């Protein structure tokens, strides 16, 4: 039996899965001030009458880190940058930072030395500010760790007890400002996350649940809880990831679909292309910061069942209509969202909402019919139309907006830059074959959205707990980016900063892939997910001959190998 628990924005959903069967579900309201408590409440309710000895795995998705960042409750961090030549670091929106001399270039060569006295001064100033968490990030440090290590050493001596995170340990993908942001967020959340992980482990022990506990990451993969403390930021946005994995579990394999998660005030949109959830190209945006966290590309649209419906008293304003239909449709006077005034009127709220409109049209049975009618009367009066017409207009506005944003997502995907001829030639135009709805607002609206897109509407049987199912049956993911420079005789792994020697000057791409596979297996074992290493596939590979003076002096090779987001074999088998 597998347990999945998704601590969501409003409710915490939990599910027990056995093979392909959903054995039991539980829901409790989420208490943002005590995530652990509501997680355990849901768990306790779930396992009542269930033999805890038969639980094979528990997977959690949590909003802990997302909330900490959104509410500004992260720990203060001193950011130390070694930017070298290039962009003025002040042009990056990274906030306060200490800038050190020293530089490494794209080949990993030192082009400017560190100044020891300057690093010591930095240590003194961090101590003077009373900061005990530090992020040290150098440009191209993933190609040569020496500078980050040296700074770490000096700062560790100057700041006893301080926690110091280094960029090359956090991510090795090219993008210095994103790496700096990700490292900073890691330092800012690592302590709280560690406490949370320990509390969860203890609570499960108290409940005699000895099954391994995993956390769901933003890329839809699971990671053992005790290993995840090294990378707390990876757990942001695990809620949307859980929903998408749930849709993957509840639909046909290999399908291309749009995932539409319609909630009270927001609708989350995601794409699954040929059975693979689309990842955001360079990493997730967390608040105002761009990071290198691998995450599904999720677009949040400020519209949902509880969105406030208003009719602006001003006349038509055709000028403002072009970019975003829905927010301003119906001759520019009907406005749906983005804010929420309260519950739908039909459910005891104060003003008209899309839910009232759906009730009036008979597309949903929730809430009071008479109150819904009253709500639409308000709209009808302002628009000068009948109640039914008003309800239809409100629903149309919501559907317009969602359809517009879905088309935008496809357009953005098509417009993603490409750097090779074959990439530009092969990219076909894609459209959704199905629209899959999850979340409370999905059942009445998804068929309308699908009809507009010419796609099939799917609202799976377990749609309300799709997120918890997704958590329960998601398999681990792992990515390894290997960079080899045969002229220097070196390789480096982007994800954990591992470096080593290569001796074969004439290394082939096949050799490089073999090395990548071995390193991935080692890393998987370290992270406690070794049994999945065999599922890894090469997703990217490039080879460049380095020519100097008309002869080949070496090769630069990059291999990306990954265990992509997927479902556990026990779920797939059935």
């Amino acid at each position, binding site marked *: 039996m597998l347990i999945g628990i998704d601590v969501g924005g409003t409710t915490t959903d939990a599910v027990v899965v056995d093979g392909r069967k959903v054995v039991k579900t539980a829901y409790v309201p989420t208490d943002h001030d005590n995530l652990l408590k509501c997680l355990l409440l849901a768990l306790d309710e779930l396992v009542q009458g269930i033999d805890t000895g038969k639980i094979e795995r528990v997977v959690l998705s949590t909003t802990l880190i997302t909330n900490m960042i959104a509410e500004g409750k992260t720990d203060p961090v001193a950011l130390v940058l070694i930017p070298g030549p290039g962009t003025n670091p002040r042009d990056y929106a990274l906030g306060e930072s200490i800038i050190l001399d020293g530089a490494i270039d794209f080949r990993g060569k030192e082009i400017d030395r560190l100044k020891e006295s300057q690093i010591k001064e930095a240590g003194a100033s961090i101590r003077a500010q009373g900061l005990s968490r530090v992020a040290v990030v150098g440009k191209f440090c993933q190609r040569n760790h020496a500078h980050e290590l040296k700074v770490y050493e000096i700062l560790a001596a100057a700041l006893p007890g301080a926690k110091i995170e280094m960029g090359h340990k956090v991510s090795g993908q090219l*993008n210095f400002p994103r790496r700096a942001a990700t490292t900073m967020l890691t330092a800012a959340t690592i302590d709280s996350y560690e406490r949370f992980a320990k509390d969860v482990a203890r609570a499960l022990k108290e409940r005699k649940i000895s099954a391994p506990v995993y956390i769901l990451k933003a890329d839809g993969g699971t990671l053992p809880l005790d290993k995840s403390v090294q990378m707390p930021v990876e757990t942001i946005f695990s809620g949307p990831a859980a929903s998408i994995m749930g849709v993957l579990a509840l639909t046909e394999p290999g399908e291309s679909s749009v995932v539409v998660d319609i909630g009270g005030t927001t609708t989350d949109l995601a794409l699954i292309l040929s059975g693979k959830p689309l990842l955001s190209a360079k990493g997730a945006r967390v608040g105002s910061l761009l990071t290198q966290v691998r995450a599904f590309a999720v677009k949040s649209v400020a519209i949902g069942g509880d969105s406030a419906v208003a009719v602006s008293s001003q006349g038509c304003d055709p000028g403002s209509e072009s970019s975003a239909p829905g927010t301003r449709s119906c001759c520019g006077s009907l406005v749906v969202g983005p804010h929420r005034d309260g519950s739908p009127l039909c459910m005891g709220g104060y003003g008209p909402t899309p839910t009232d409109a759906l009730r009036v049209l008979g597309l949903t049975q929730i809430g009071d019919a008479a109150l819904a009618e009253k709500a639409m009367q308000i709209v009808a009066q302002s628009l000068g139309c009948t109640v039914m017409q008003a309800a239809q207009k409100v629903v149309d506005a919501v559907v317009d907006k969602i359809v517009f944003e879905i088309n935008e997502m496809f357009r953005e995907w098509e417009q993603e830059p490409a750097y090779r001829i074959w990439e*530009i030639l092969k990219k076909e135009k894609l459209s959704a074959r199905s629209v899959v709805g999850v979340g409370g607002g999905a059942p009445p609206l998804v068929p309308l959205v699908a009809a507009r897109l010419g796609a099939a509407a799917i609202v799976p049987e377990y749609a309300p707990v799709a997120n918890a199912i997704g958590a329960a049956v998601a398999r681990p993911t792992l990515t390894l980016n290997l960079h080899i420079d045969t002229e220097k005789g070196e390789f480096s792994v982007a994800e954990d900063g591992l470096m080593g020697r290569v001796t074969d000057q004439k290394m082939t791409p096949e050799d490089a892939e073999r090395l990548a596979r071995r390193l991935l297996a080692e890393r998987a074992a370290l992270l406690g997910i070794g049994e999945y290493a065999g599922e890894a596939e090469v997703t990217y590979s490039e080879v460049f001959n380095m020519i100097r003076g008309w002869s080949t002096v070496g090769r630069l090779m990059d291999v990306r190998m990954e265990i992509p987001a997927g479902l556990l074999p026990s779920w797939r088998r059935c």
Partner: protein
Amino acid sequence: MSSQGKSGKTGLIFFPAFDWAISPTHPEREERLLYTRDQIFEEGLMDLPQIEEYKPRLAEEKDVARAHFCVPDVGSQVTEAHLIAAGSTLTLADALEKGEIRNGFALVRPPGHHSMRVVHGNRGFCNINNMAILVEYLRTKYGHKRIAVIDTDVHHGDGTQDIFWHDPDVLCLSFHQDGHTLYPGSGFVNEMGGPQALARTLNVPLPPGTTDEGIHYVLDNLILPILDEFKPDLILNSAGQDNHYTDPLANMRFSANGYARLNEKLAPDLCVLEGGYAVETALPYVNTGIIQAMAGLDYSHVKEPDYVPGRFVQTEGMVREIEHTVAQVQKIWDQRDELTKDALEGLGDFYRRKRRVFYDTDMINENQEEVVRLCPDCAGYMTINTSAQRGYGILNSAFCVSIPRKACSSCRDDAKEEYAEHVDDKRIGYVLMQDKDKDKFKFYNNMTRTERGY
């Protein structure tokens, strides 16, 4: 300049053609923009709010035919990589015209500025001229009249010069290392355009070893004042990066900071990458600097590892030579109206020039005779009789006819007659028609007696 005062983003297309090379060890190979990719990606430039990255598209064959006579046709002379490099410039042109961006940089390869009007093969690493294709597109699609092309590559932009030789509305100004000392061996002060467009082609040959100081002297004292007077709708930069002090194929002493400052002052609407072959020591820094300058970002932190300000100093003799050249070119520009008048007086109804063109990359020798009608009512139609031989291979020959925009009816009729006269003439392989006025293009094969067009 035209882009100053505009708000908005800088559009960027990065197309390194990581799967295309002239040959494995050629300077124009896969690796050329690899370290530039590493640098600009590591800088996170594409994430900055001042920059918008665009996806390249393929140019259509018609876009190429607007600028070139490809013999026997466009498809035989280009690969997909060429169409993507050219298409990238058109994507940025569209974004600029739609107001999505205030300026743009097509950081693309393969380059184009040595490709001339007639194309039999690859010259100076170039098959088709991205810049010329961009100019013709901007004029046809968006109706721009006056365009200035400033060629900042170390080599003379002889292809662009050839294509706009007779066009008074396109100012082609190239500064470069003196042709006595560098490929393609042209670009002297006395090359100043056809009789109807004298001084709309300007060349500024510079002594080997010219530094930032020298090039900025040319910019401040010649290029910027001329642009002020020419008042182009758009300024385009053929942005070669081989004036750099580490370039292996040339001998100048320009720095990344000098390049960035040049683009800040020139404020081009669109920049198109040309050459530059110091793949590790120059390109990552120069490209970063150019992008930053165009986006209005601080570029003062861009510095080559071994560069110190004041590292290169021009000799007194070089300074004087540059000043002298600038004065000469300035004089030509100032006398442009008289020069044109005098030139036209001495000529009859037609202007002819015969030339030989050598295609170094493909070892092709071409013989051309170009005839332009000096028409009082329009720019005059043009014919080119060309034959070219690769080694001891086939002698490819073509008769090309070009009808200018806003052609008068007499020129149009005569041009059509010229085309008809050469169709089925077995002494010539192909007959090509470029109707810029109607944006229609025809290719006739005299051997198979078939015509195609777009």
